[in-house]
């Protein structure tokens, strides 16, 4: 039997070093990644699932004092499990030439980097890993080599880098305050550095106005890449944010307000959006609000979100048009509609499909003033997904096609997640069913086919950075120094 430290080092090797090594070797033969990488992802998901079930927690410090601190607790394992499952599902869905070969080594490196972010308990290590994941995500966004993809990738990198510079400033403040980069110092940290850290991570995590690079980048990238970005890369910002919010009480106040604003704001844009991929991207923004609303539970919902949002992006990528109005005119075949329908039910919080348990626990733990706003956001989610559910369906087609490997994989893991979460209350189930039904009713009565073009000036790169800066000032103004 291995010592606890030994087991911790072994998991670092399996979760971080193995993907890196595989990625570097794959650069010489990228195409073989399709058959090799599933095993890497599978090993990290199995390890994480075993550790979650046995409830083990490791804390190791690499190489003595001032070393990198890693903490592998329930939160970290949940995120690692999500990382493994989403990457596995996306790789299973890839056909022979749906992505250029270079995608495979990049994906392997990204997988390892994301694992490293989820495990770190060290402010500076989080900075390094998030910057690395930013570079890799940048290269993935522009894979299709279309001018607009290059532009949105450049926007993403500029916004993300400015955010991380602010984060670095926060790190410096934390270090001079306490003489250590460990996240333990967050407990007594003054408010200003906490605001800087939160802002930097929010830019990466697609929170509120700081995350407005997200619809453009996630909407324009190839579908498989969008699935990875929304499923995993956004969470490299969310996971440290959840940690910070659970450690520092001043951060908790800020994050709970940001969460509500994010959820409402994202859903508002999603309801009126006409482009299906952009709509999903706006929902990613609004769902991060749900995750952050209750930092103690958020990681469970993040796991569910990674799975169903990845699935939705993959299914949306198979449609022949991105324009919802066009799709409504032409209809879609049943084989394409079924996965979208199931994903839409999961994100709306129907019991049994993964999204229910996490969402219900979040709703039961919310602060008093948050509750009405979060219900509005949940209703908006159902309303907006009614747009996809009520697309006319062309019957026929081979139903066997629905049972493709990745569809089965995502469905099985969502149902398994619901069972593993093991949370069920009749009251919550009835509430979520009511929300879904009323969302659909509102859609049928008021919304049919009306798409408004909302002003999008806030998504220009200058405005994203300006709004980021204004948000810091807003935090100082509302919560004080």
């Amino acid at each position: 039997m291995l010592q606890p430290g030994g087991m911790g080092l072994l998991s670092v090797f399996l979760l971080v070093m193995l993907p890196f090594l595989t990625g570097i070797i794959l650069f010489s033969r990228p195409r073989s990644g399709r058959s090799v990488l599933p095993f890497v992802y599978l090993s990290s998901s199995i390890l994480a699932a075993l550790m979650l079930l046995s409830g083990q927690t490791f804390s190791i410090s690499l190489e003595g004092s001032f070393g990198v601190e890693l903490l592998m607790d329930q939160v970290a394992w949940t995120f690692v499990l999500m990382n493994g499952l989403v990457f596995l599902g996306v790789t299973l869905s890839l056909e022979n030439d749906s992505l250029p070969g270079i995608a495979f080594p990049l994906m392997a490196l990204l997988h390892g980097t994301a694992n490293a972010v989820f495990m770190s308990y060290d402010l500076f290590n989080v900075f390094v890993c998030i910057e690395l994941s930013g570079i890799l995500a940048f290269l993935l966004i522009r894979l299709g080599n279309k001018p607009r993809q290059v532009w949105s990738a450049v926007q993403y990198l500029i916004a993300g880098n400015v955010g991380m510079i602010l984060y670095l400033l926060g790190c410096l403040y934390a270090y001079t305050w306490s003489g250590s980069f460990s996240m333990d110092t967050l407990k007594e940290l003054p408010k200003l550095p906490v605001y800087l850290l939160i802002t930097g991570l929010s830019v990466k995590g697609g929170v509120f106005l700081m995350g407005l690079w997200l619809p453009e980048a996630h909407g324009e990238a190839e579908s498989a890449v969008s699935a990875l970005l929304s499923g995993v890369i956004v969470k490299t910002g969310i996971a440290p944010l959840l940690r910070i919010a659970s450690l520092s009480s001043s951060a908790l106040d800020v994050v709970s307000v940001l969460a509500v604003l994010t959820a409402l704001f994202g859903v508002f844009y999603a309801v009126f959006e006409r482009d299906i991929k952009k709509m999903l991207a706006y929902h990613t923004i609004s769902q991060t609000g749900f995750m952050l609303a209750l930092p103690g539970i958020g990681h469970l919902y993040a796991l569910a979100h990674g799975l169903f949002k990845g699935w939705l992006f993959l299914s949306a990528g198979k449609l022949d048009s991105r324009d919802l109005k066009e799709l409504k005119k032409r209809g879609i075949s049943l084989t394409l509609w079924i996965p979208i329908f199931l994903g839409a039910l999961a994100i709306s919080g129907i019991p049994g499909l993964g999204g229910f348990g996490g969402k219900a626990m979040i709703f039961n733990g919310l602060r008093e003033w948050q509750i009405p706003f979060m219900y509005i956001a949940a209703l908006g989610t159902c309303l907006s997904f009614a747009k996809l559910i009520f697309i006319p369906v062309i019957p026929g087609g081979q139903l066997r096609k629905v049972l493709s490997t990745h569809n089965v994989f995502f469905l099985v893991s969502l149902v398994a997640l619901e069972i593993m979460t093991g949370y069920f209350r009749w009251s919550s189930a009835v509430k979520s069913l009511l929300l879904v039904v009323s969302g659909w009713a509102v859609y049928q009565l008021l919304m049919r086919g009306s798409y408004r073009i909302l002003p999008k000036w806030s998504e220009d790169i200058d405005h994203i950075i300006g709004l980021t800066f204004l948000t810091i000032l807003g935090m100082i103004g509302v919560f004080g120094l």
Partner: protein
Amino acid sequence: MNVIFIVRIMLLSVVAIGLAGVLFKRNLIMKVIAMDIMNTGVISLFVLSAWQSSRAPVIRDPSSVISTADPVPQAVILTAIVIGFSILSLIVVYVMDLSRYFHTLDTERIQEKWKR
């Protein structure tokens, strides 16, 4: 009012100038350079913070020196410098690509291409 305080204020204003540059310059190259200025400001703040530290120095005979530097921020900031450099070079390469597609580096004009 000591020297460190003045230098710190100056470096913070370098960061602010960089931020203003990213915000208000419309040319992409200028934006990227402004981002680098911002980064440099933060890096210099790290170096400055090492100088004023009053922790036990990492030397045999502390009585023989007047002031020492804290090695941790300096060691750590090397990584940040490398990251900043690599991101900068990556962006510049793709800005070059963009200028080939659009024949302009003006962000607003590039964004206008997709306005509905």
